[in-house]
């Protein structure tokens, strides 16, 4: 028993030493490196003003009440029923992508941007007029390197720069 224990101690120490001297690293060097996401990533949402048929399905399916139908000021005429278009509130959005999947005209699309960082609370609400202008580009002090996760048999995961 004691011998077996000693062997196990030695094995544990040797394995530790093996990784100390060799071994791989799994770290993504954020924020120097920024990961490019694979196709189909469910990020922030883009809105196509022209193809939208204002059906409201996206607002109906939204599980977090993030997508709502806003009165579109430029289209609504006085005295008539107001025209409503979708807008999104990123304080609530949970990135489930149901609105994109239910949109019958493909007016909503995924982007691969996930940086929901804003200075103020109000900035995170995107009424239709702002929603159509697209998502804000994340800003960096220094332009980071774009990397892509490559799955690897030996190292598990590697981050390779993309051009």
């Amino acid at each position, binding site marked *: 028993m004691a011998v077996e224990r000693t062997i196990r101690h030695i094995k544990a120490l040797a394995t530790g030493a093996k990784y100390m001297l060799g071994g791989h690293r799994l770290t993504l060097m954020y924020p120097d490196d920024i990961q490019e996401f694979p196709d189909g990533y469910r990020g922030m949402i883009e809105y196509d003003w022209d193809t939208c048929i204002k059906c409201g399905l996206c*607002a*109906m399916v939204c599980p977090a009440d993030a997508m*709502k*139908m*806003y*009165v579109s000021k430029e289209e609504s005429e006085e005295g008539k029923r107001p025209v*409503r278009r979708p807008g999104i509130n990123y304080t609530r959005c949970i990135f489930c992508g149901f609105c994109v999947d239910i949109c019958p005209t493909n007016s909503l699309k995924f982007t691969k941007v996930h940086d929901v960082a804003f200075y103020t609370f109000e900035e995170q609400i995107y009424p239709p007029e702002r929603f159509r202008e697209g998502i804000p580009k994340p800003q960096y002090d220094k332009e980071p390197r774009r990397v892509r996760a490559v799955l690897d048999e030996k190292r598990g995961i590697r981050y390779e720069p993309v051009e």
Partner: protein
Amino acid sequence: MKFEELKSQIEERMKDLGAEVSGKEPNVVDVKVPRERIVEAAKRLKEMGFDHVKAVTAIDYPNERFEIVYVSSSYSNLELAYFIVNLRTDLPYDDPKMPTLLEVWPSVLYQEHEEHDLMGIVFEGHPRMGERLLLPESYEGIPPLRKEFKVKTEGINA
């Protein structure tokens, strides 16, 4: 074991308890008994091999009744593990009390406590009646899972 076979077995055993046995193919058997007989019914189910409870569901039908469902199944008998037996009982709306099944199925300890906490059902003989489980100690008011407790919704318009 076949579904029909199990159902008739349960019917056989529960006959004198005034149980209504129904079933949903392929594997769910519903047993409804009056609340005075529920402990006895649970004992008999346990003797058959239904040794644990997966869920205790209390359903609120406002001003009418509460329905308590014990979703039980078996660990020790893998043939029975395929089946789910729902032991159910009705409680009057103004007197939601029933004996605890803790003696028969110790696995209901937290489940009954939760239904007590959130639905306001009283399980007589349960050691933690009157204590809070998930709600804060200071909570007062309507038990939140009852239908009287309204949750506001926003609708789709901003």
